[in-house]
């Protein structure tokens, strides 16, 4: 029973260490902050789109990029610097490390996206129809996206650039199939089938429900899917990283 407080303390210390070390790393700033802003300018500015209608999707995209940008960097960076081995020799387990990485990504996503939302309210009249759902969307969204980021860092690599490229290969297609640029209600055929497979779709839908009161799925379905994928990503990361450790990688 002594192990539970030790386990929780490990997660807390690792989260703090990640926040201190990785939030200002160039790949995180590049892929977590600049890319979503560029995407916003590229797709929304000058196209006479109704920004209020598209704001929930933009917020989901911002949250997705920020929360999933920290995770892919941490493990390969630590393996390259050989600090991962020392970390494992501290009173922590691989699970504490994974959860600490997820928490660091989630806090980054939460902080930046909240700032973007607050700043946006100055320029765009964004309404919130359900504050509870809005808060839930933030929490579950950051958790799912941060867990995806940690999963993307799980392949046995000690090269941060390789992992960042791999993570972008996965992350970029997701924003095109998740109802951000084309609303889900206007999708059909393969596009719609692919959209159902993307966790980001459910986050966009939940933000739509929270901010505009309209959604394709029930908010309950969105929440269950986001909780489910978060757990799935963390379990998958755990299995892959454990296997890597057994193989000595």
């Amino acid at each position: 029973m002594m192990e539970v407080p030790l386990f929780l303390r490990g997660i807390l210390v690792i989260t703090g260490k990640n926040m201190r070390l990785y939030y200002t790393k160039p790949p995180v700033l590049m892929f977590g902050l600049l890319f979503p802003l560029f995407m916003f300018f590229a797709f929304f500015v000058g196209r006479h789109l109704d920004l209020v209608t598209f704001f929930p999707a933009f917020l989901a995209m911002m949250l997705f990029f920020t929360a999933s940008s920290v995770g892919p960097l941490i493990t390969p960076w630590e393996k390259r610097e050989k600090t991962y081995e020392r970390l494992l020799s501290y009173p922590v387990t691989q699970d504490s490390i994974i959860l600490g990485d997820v928490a660091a990504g989630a806090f980054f996503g939460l902080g930046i996206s909240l700032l973007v939302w607050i700043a946006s309210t100055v320029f765009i009249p964004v309404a919130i129809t359900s504050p509870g759902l809005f808060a839930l969307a933030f929490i579950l969204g950051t958790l799912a996206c941060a867990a995806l980021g940690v999963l993307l860092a799980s392949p046995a690599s000690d090269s941060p650039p390789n992992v960042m490229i791999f993570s972008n290969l996965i992350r970029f297609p997701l924003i095109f199939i998740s109802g951000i640029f084309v609303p889900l209600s206007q999708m059909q055929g393969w596009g719609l089938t692919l959209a159902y497979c993307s966790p980001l779709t459910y986050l966009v839908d939940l933000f739509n429900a929270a901010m505009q009161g309209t959604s394709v799925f029930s908010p309950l379905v969105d929440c269950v899917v986001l909780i489910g994928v978060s757990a799935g990503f963390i379990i998958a990361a755990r299995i892959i990283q454990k296997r890597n450790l057994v193989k000595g990688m």
Partner: protein
Amino acid sequence: MNAIEAGHLVKRFGAITAVNDVSLTVREGETFGFLGPNGAGKTTTMRMLTGVLTPETGTVLINGIDIHRHPLDAKMQMGVIPESSTVYGDMSAEQNLHLSGKMYGMPRALREKRIDEILSQMGLSDKRRILVRTFSKGMKQRVSIACAIIHRPKVLFLDEPTSGLDVQSRRLVIETIHQMNEQGSTIFLTTHNIEEANTLCQTVCIINKGRIVAQDSPERLRKMFDTTQSVEVSFDRAVTRDLFAGEGILRAEPCGDKWRLYTDNPDAVLKYLVGRAERESLGITSLTTSGPSLEEAFVHLTECA
């Protein structure tokens, strides 16, 4: 009580068996040297003992706590210094130590007191706020050691701690090992530096090709191979190997500006050298004899296995 007990550890990487049925016991308060040539399985064994790697079979107890069943409790007992100086380069020495202290649950006041103490001991007080990535290898290793001993561990694991260090840093590391041992810590030292093991350790264990081939005190290991002794000689001018084709000389090896002669009859060799030097008008500038070395035992054990 035993500080470390490992039973029947096996670790395979694909078709390669890196560690094959290794069992060892380290008594509380002992300095235990784990020797072996490169690739013998030293680091893999140490990784299993410290809970970094999971063995395929076997058990590890640290102060009686099973590291695979209660990893956090077991790791609280130990400090680990991995092979390369694995500290965070983007943090200062002080921040690295705070991180370590937090990992071991040390309260802030205690942490700060201990950090002051340990940075002074490591000669890093004036560099406490400088980023570690700007440090030399020796300084990084000192920070790494400081991180591992901040909580005064009961068991300290060191993997090649002096490898590639300058003389000053090496002395500081050895002094710290002595000090930790005097304060009651059990030391598990992985090395291929035989002289280091000889001077530091009460027990030496030799591993080769994943198996333990010998475990005893350095003195007893030496005595296992006490047939061969050596004579080191240097002259006032260069000589060739032909000079050493004399009675009782089994082998002659150049050793810097000296020659090391292996013999089972040092008396005959000394008489031969003095006589030969006189005949050739050579001046003997130094002449020393030494008993069987741990190095000889190590070479014998790792070559024969």
